[in-house]
């Protein structure tokens, strides 16, 4: 063991010298004007300048042209103003034309009066890191490009659906008219066939309306309301009457108490009831009646549709109002799975709620909206607004 004393100090000094010279970082010490006083062997190796040649150069003399100007116009001012700069990416330009990408920190040592005393630069090789960074940026660019392309495709697809849905209405209308003519001209022996035709065209109309509404909501137009102060009794009766025509074998009971008008979009309310009632008739117990109730209280308007039958499975309940969700355990049932999604959108546009309960006893869907306070009421039939603006379903 060495005795403590002078030699330790020398060792320490030698250690510091070695640390400065032999390390993976470039170290540079410069005078307050930025003139290099000393640079370590790492800097000399990277730039192919000798330690002697480096002495007296400005730090910017070691940089490529872009870095040189960046340094003189941005970094040097920054160093003088805030006393340091850090994590700056620059490119060293070597004596023999080689370029090395580096990350530079600089720190200005100041005396008690705040005058710069000397400047220290720490230079770290950063080629791999920057390559990695560039790859990430490249990957991000590709991903962004791909995302933009996919969005464009999705929009086109939804536009196609909207246009298709709209254009299918006319041929459907023609079929409906033709069925009416056939019904009167054909005898009773074909009544079953006529009933099938009627039910099928009705379903098709529903599907077309659903996908058109869905496409619109995805395109950001949302469910647009045409609100009117409406007496809903005849509107609801009409929906039930249509359904009775389509499902003549089924019993539909009604309890309507809507003598006073409600501010709403009557066509949308009809669509909502039609969807809910259609679901109840399709999924409910075929031998039990479906009960439709509607009431207009002082502050609320409410429609509920209840049926007996197998309860909605719990896993399905959680995503019942999501587009394209269907009861896959019962593949025989038709539909896109858009009906309840659109009902929910209609409720949302009316600032109303759509809730359900489902158990062994019965399954009930309830639409419930607050009715405007009396002061806001307008005479029946007058148009309140053209719509509520876009309701984005996404």
């Amino acid at each position, binding site marked *: 063991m060495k005795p403590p004393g002078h030699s330790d100090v020398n060792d320490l000094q030698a250690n510091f010298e070695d640390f400065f010279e032999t390390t993976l970082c470039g170290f540079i010490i410069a005078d307050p*004007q930025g003139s290099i006083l000393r640079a370590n062997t790492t800097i000399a190796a990277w730039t192919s300048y000798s330690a002697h040649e480096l002495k007296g150069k400005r730090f910017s003399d070691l940089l490529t042209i872009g870095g040189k100007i960046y340094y003189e116009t941005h970094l040097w001012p920054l160093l003088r103003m805030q006393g340091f700069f850090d994590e700056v990416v620059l490119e060293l330009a070597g004596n023999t034309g080689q370029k090395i990408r580096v990350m530079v920190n600089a720190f200005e040592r100041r005396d008690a009066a705040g005058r710069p005393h000397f400047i220290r630069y720490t230079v770290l090789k950063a080629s791999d890191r920057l390559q990695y960074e560039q790859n990430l940026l490249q990957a991000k660019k590709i991903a962004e490009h791909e995302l933009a392309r996919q969005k464009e495709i999705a929009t086109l697809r939804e536009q196609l659906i909207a246009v298709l849905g709209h254009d299918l209405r006319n041929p459907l209308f023609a079929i409906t008219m033709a069925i009416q003519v056939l019904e009167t001209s054909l005898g009773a022996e074909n009544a079953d066939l006529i009933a099938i035709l009627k039910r099928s065209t009705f379903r098709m109309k529903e599907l077309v309306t659903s996908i058109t509404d869905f496409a619109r909501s995805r395109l950001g137009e949302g469910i647009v309301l045409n609100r009117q102060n409406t007496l809903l009794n005849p509107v609801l009766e009409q929906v039930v009457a249509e359904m009775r025509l389509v499902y003549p074998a089924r019993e539909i009971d009604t309890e309507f108490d809507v003598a006073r008008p409600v501010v709403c979009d009557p066509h949308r309310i009809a669509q909502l009831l039609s969807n809910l009632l259609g679901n109840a008739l399709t999924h409910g117990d075929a031998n039990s009646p479906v009960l439709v109730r509607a009431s207009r209280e002082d502050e609320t308007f409410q429609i509920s549709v209840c049926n007996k039958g197998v309860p909605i499975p719990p896993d399905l309940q959680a995503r019942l109002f999501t587009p394209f969700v269907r009861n896959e355990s019962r593949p025989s049932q038709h539909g896109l799975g858009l009906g309840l999604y659109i009902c929910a959108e209609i409720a949302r546009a009316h600032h109303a709620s759509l809730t359900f309960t489902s158990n062994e006893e019965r399954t009930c869907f309830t639409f419930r909206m607050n009715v405007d306070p009396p002061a806001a009421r307008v005479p029946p039939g007058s148009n309140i607004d053209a719509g509520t603006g876009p309701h984005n379903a996404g």
Partner: protein
Amino acid sequence: MSRLNNMDILRRNNVIVKGNGSRPMMFAHGFGCDQNMWRYVVPAFEENFKVVLFDHVGSGKSDLSAYDPDKYAKLEGYAQDIIEIADSLRISDIIFVGHSVSALIGMIASQLAPGLFTSLVLVGPSPSYINDGDYIGGFTRAQIEELLESLDQNHLGWSMAMAPVIMGNPDRKELSEELANSFCSTDPEITKHFARTTFLTDKREILSGVDVPSLILQCSEDVIAPQSVGEYMHRHMKDSTLVVLKATGHCPNLSAPEETIEAIRNFLSP
């Protein structure tokens, strides 16, 4: 575009007026950073002058939304702003101090608005950065192309992708007054555009028409404006004085404020 009122203009350029004197002295920063570039020089003139500081649109705390690439594709766009600032403050007979590209902008303004300036102090000026025959601007065209390309690729982090640096040093005490690097950070697109305007401009033809007394402050060993440029300007400008500072680099206002102040004082009170 609707006409801006005086307050809009002062806000647009983040104009600061200070000092106890009545004679106006306007300081214009160059490419890179903002009016903070004058922080070590301005106090020496506050006693006897009305000091006007501002940020060019696109720099510092200027209104970045006012940045119009067409307007600022030419130095005349910046010169127009300087004239508008003087109008808004109702000042004329100004001592104009411009650093780097702003020296040139001041010379342009002095010709667009005669009487606006009584004298020009040009710190590290250059009428053109690209070598052309006998004229040594300091850079070859290829070098300037390389510079602009490095800006396009942003591979040097020009104009500073600074947010992470700012966020990364919350406890650093040097930052207590201002956020790190904020003096010199701005929108990368604007920096790119400003660099293009600055380094591709050739205004040598206006030198002979500058008719106000001018002080050319030339640094020793300035990479951006070499001594040959200062000498060239001095030769072509009638009423000019050339002072070569001991200071090195491109920013004597920061590197050697005392020497810079002294040279300006000598020029103003011979």
